[in-house]
C-alpha cells in the first residue's frame, strides 16, 4: 500500500513577461487502488500538476510538497522519480530519433527494476501487451514514437504503463485525440494495470468521455490552479451536463475549496 501526497503545492513558470504562478495551492492524496480524476477547463493547470509530479524542468515549485510514502519527491531527479514508481503518460509524447522501441523499452525496464529483464519472458510480455493494445508487432523495430499517429503514441504510452508497473500512474489527457475504438483499447489497458491492485491512478482529462470506461473513485474539479470542487463519480456526470461554467469567476456558485478527500 503506497501513498502519494501533494500538499499545498505552488508552481510557477518563467515566461517572457516574468514569473507566472500556475498552481496556487493544490492538495491531494492518492492511495494504491484508488482512481482520481482531475477535470477542468483548458489552462486551469491540470497538465502542470502532471508535469510537476514527473519533474519537468520547466516548472518551479515555489512552495508545498510532494511525497511518495513519506519520501520527498521534489528532491529526486526525473529518472529517480520514475524508478521510485511514478509514471507519467504524456499528453504529447516526443519522437526520439535513433532509438528503437525495443532498445528503449528494455533499457527503461532495466533502469526501473535495477536489473535486466529475463530475455525470453520479457519478449513474450512485450508481445502480449502489444497485442492487447492492438499495436502492430513491427513497432518494436521503429524508433520511439517516430512517425506514430497521435493514437499510436497514446497506446504506446499505455504499453509502457503496463510493462513498467508503476506505483502511481499519472495520465495526462491520454484520452485527447482518440477515436472511440482507440479510447476503449487504451482504457482497457489502464484498467488491466489498475486491476493488478498495486497501482493508484491520477487521470487528468478535459472530457468526461473516458470516465465511461475508467471509473473514478474521486473527481476533483480544477479551475485556475486550484481544486474548487470534489466528489465521487456522480460529480463527473454533473460536469457532463453542466460544463465548467458554474465554476467560472463570478458565476455565483461558492467555489471555496472543498475538504480534502480523506
Amino acid at each position, binding site marked *: 500500500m503506497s501513498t502519494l501526497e501533494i500538499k499545498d503545492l505552488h508552481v510557477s513558470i518563467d515566461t517572457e513577461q516574468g514569473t507566472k504562478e500556475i498552481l496556487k495551492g493544490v492538495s491531494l492524496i492518492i492511495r494504491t487502488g484508488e482512481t482520481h480524476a482531475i477535470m477542468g477547463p483548458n489552462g486551469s493547470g491540470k497538465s502542470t500538476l502532471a508535469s510537476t509530479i514527473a519533474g519537468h*524542468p520547466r516548472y518551479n515549485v515555489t512552495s508545498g510538497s510532494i511525497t511518495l510514502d513519506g519520501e520527498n519527491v521534489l528532491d529526486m531527479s*526525473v*529518472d529517480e522519480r520514475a524508478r521510485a514508481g511514478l509514471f507519467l503518460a*504524456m499528453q504529447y509524447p516526443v519522437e*526520439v530519433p*535513433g532509438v*528503437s522501441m525495443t532498445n528503449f523499452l528494455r*533499457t*527503461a525496464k532495466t533502469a526501473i527494476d535495477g536489473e535486466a529483464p529475463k530475455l525470453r519472458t520479457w519478449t513474450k510480455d512485450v508481445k502480449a501487451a502489444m497485442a492487447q493494445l492492438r499495436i502492430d508487432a513491427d513497432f518494436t523495430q521503429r524508433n520511439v514514437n517516430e512517425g506514430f499517429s497521435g493514437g499510436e503514441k497514446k497506446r504506446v504510452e499505455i504499453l509502457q504503463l503496463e510493462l513498467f508497473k508503476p506505483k502511481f500512474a499519472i495520465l495526462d489527457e491520454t484520452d485527447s485525440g482518440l477515436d472511440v475504438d482507440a479510447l476503449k483499447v487504451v482504457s482497457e489497458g489502464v484498467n488491466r494495470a489498475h486491476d493488478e491492485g498495486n497501482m493508484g491512478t491520477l487521470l487528468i482529462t478535459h472530457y468526461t468521455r473516458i470516465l465511461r470506461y475508467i471509473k473514478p473513485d474521486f473527481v476533483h474539479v480544477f479551475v485556475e490552479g486550484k481544486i474548487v470542487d470534489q466528489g465521487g463519480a456522480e460529480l463527473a456526470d454533473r460536469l457532463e451536463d453542466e460544463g465548467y461554467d458554474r465554476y467560472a469567476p463570478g458565476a455565483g456558485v461558492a467555489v471555496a475549496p472543498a475538504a480534502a478527500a480523506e
Partner: protein
Amino acid sequence: MTEITEEKARIGAPSQPFINGFTEEGENLSPINTSESKAPLAGEAVKAHSHGGGVGIPDSSRAGRLTSYKLADFAPLTGMEEDWRFTPLKRLRGLHSDVLKGTAPAVDITAPEGIIVETVGRDDARIGSAAIPEDRVSANAWENFSEATVITVPEEHQATGEIMVSIEGSGLEASAQHFVIIAKRFSKAVVVLDHRGTAVVAENVEILVEDGAQLTVISLQEWTDDSVHASSQQAKLSRDAKFKHIVVSLGGDLVRLTPSARFSGPGAEAELFGLYYADAGQHLEQRLFVDHAVPNCKSNVLYKGALQGRNAHAVWVGDVLIRKEAEGTDTYEANRNLVLTDGARADSVPNLEIETGLIAGAGHASATGRFDDEHLFYLMARGIPEKVARRLVVRGFLNEIISQIKVPALEERLTEAVERELAASEN
C-alpha cells in the same frame, strides 16, 4: 529541432567576423567568383579552364569550377574562395602552399585472392583516368606524389572479402599520396582505406567503376589529434555501375574530404554516406559533388555528424548537379547534425542545381539540432539516467551510417570508437 545559426563568424578568423556575401545558399561568396572581378580565376577565366562546364554555364554553377592537373593553374588560397571559406588555412600545415616532400604514410594492403595490387610510377597510364584535381591542395598532391598504388578488381571477379588498405602515417612533414581503384566490368568488391597514425597528407583517390560493377569504398579517418588530412576521392561511374562510398571521420586536427561521383553512363547508382564526430578544437569538413551528366541515374547522400566541445567544427557542403542531359535522374541528399554541447559549430550547405525538369525526383535536406531537452525528459521520465539517455540517442543517431558498412568487424570497431568519443564527452 532545426536551428538556424545566426552567427556568421568563421572559426580561425576572429579579426574578420563577416565574410562578404555570406548567405545560407553558399553562392558567390568570394569576390574572385564574380564575373565583374578581374582576378585571374574569375569570369571567362573560369570557363576557359573548365573541363566540365564551358560556354553558357554561369560561374555560380558547380559545373563551372576550375579543374586542372597543374598546381600553377590554381591561385594561392586566401580563405575567401567559396570552397575554402570554412577551412582554417593556418592549420593546413602547408598542404596548400608547400612542396609536399615528406614521406607519405605507409601503405599495407591485405587483399583476398584475385585482386591485383601494384605500386606504379607517375607515368602509369591509369593515373588520371578517373579524376582531375578540383582544388589547389589536390593539385599540389598530384604534382608531388612519387608513386601510386593501383588496386584492380578484375573483370567479373567477385571479391571474397574486403580489401584492407592500411595507411599508417608516421610524421608531420607535409606529404602527398595517390591511389587508383579500378573495378572492372561486372566485378564486385569492398575497399577499406584505413587512415591511422600521425600524418600531414594530401591525397588523391581515383575510383573507376566500370559497366555493371559494384564497388564499395570506405574511408576511415582515425588519425592522431595533430594530423592534417585532405583527400579528394573522385569516382567515375559507367553504365549500370553501383557505387557506395562511406566516410567515417573521427580523428585528426583537420580532416577535409571532397568525395565526388560523376555519372558517365546511364543506369548507374551512387550512395554516399558519411559519419563524423567532432571533438573540441577539431575541424572535420566534407564537400561532396554528385554530377548527374547522363540520363536515368540514381544518387543518395546521407551524412550525419555529432559535435561536442569548444570549437568543434563540422562542415558539410553537398553539391548535386542535374545537367540538361540527365533526364530521369533520381537524387536525394541530406545532412543531419547533432550538437551535444555549447561551443560547437556545424555548417551545412546543401546545393541542388537542376537544369532539366524531366526528372524522377530531386530533394535535399539539412537539419542541425541540439540534443533536445524534451528527448532527455522523455527518456529520464522512464527511469533512464541522463548519461545512458544521451548515449542511447547519439548511438542511435550514428548507427544509421555504421550499419551501412556491412563489414561486421569494421562495424564493431567503429561502434567502439563512437563509444569512446561518447565517454570523452562525460569528462
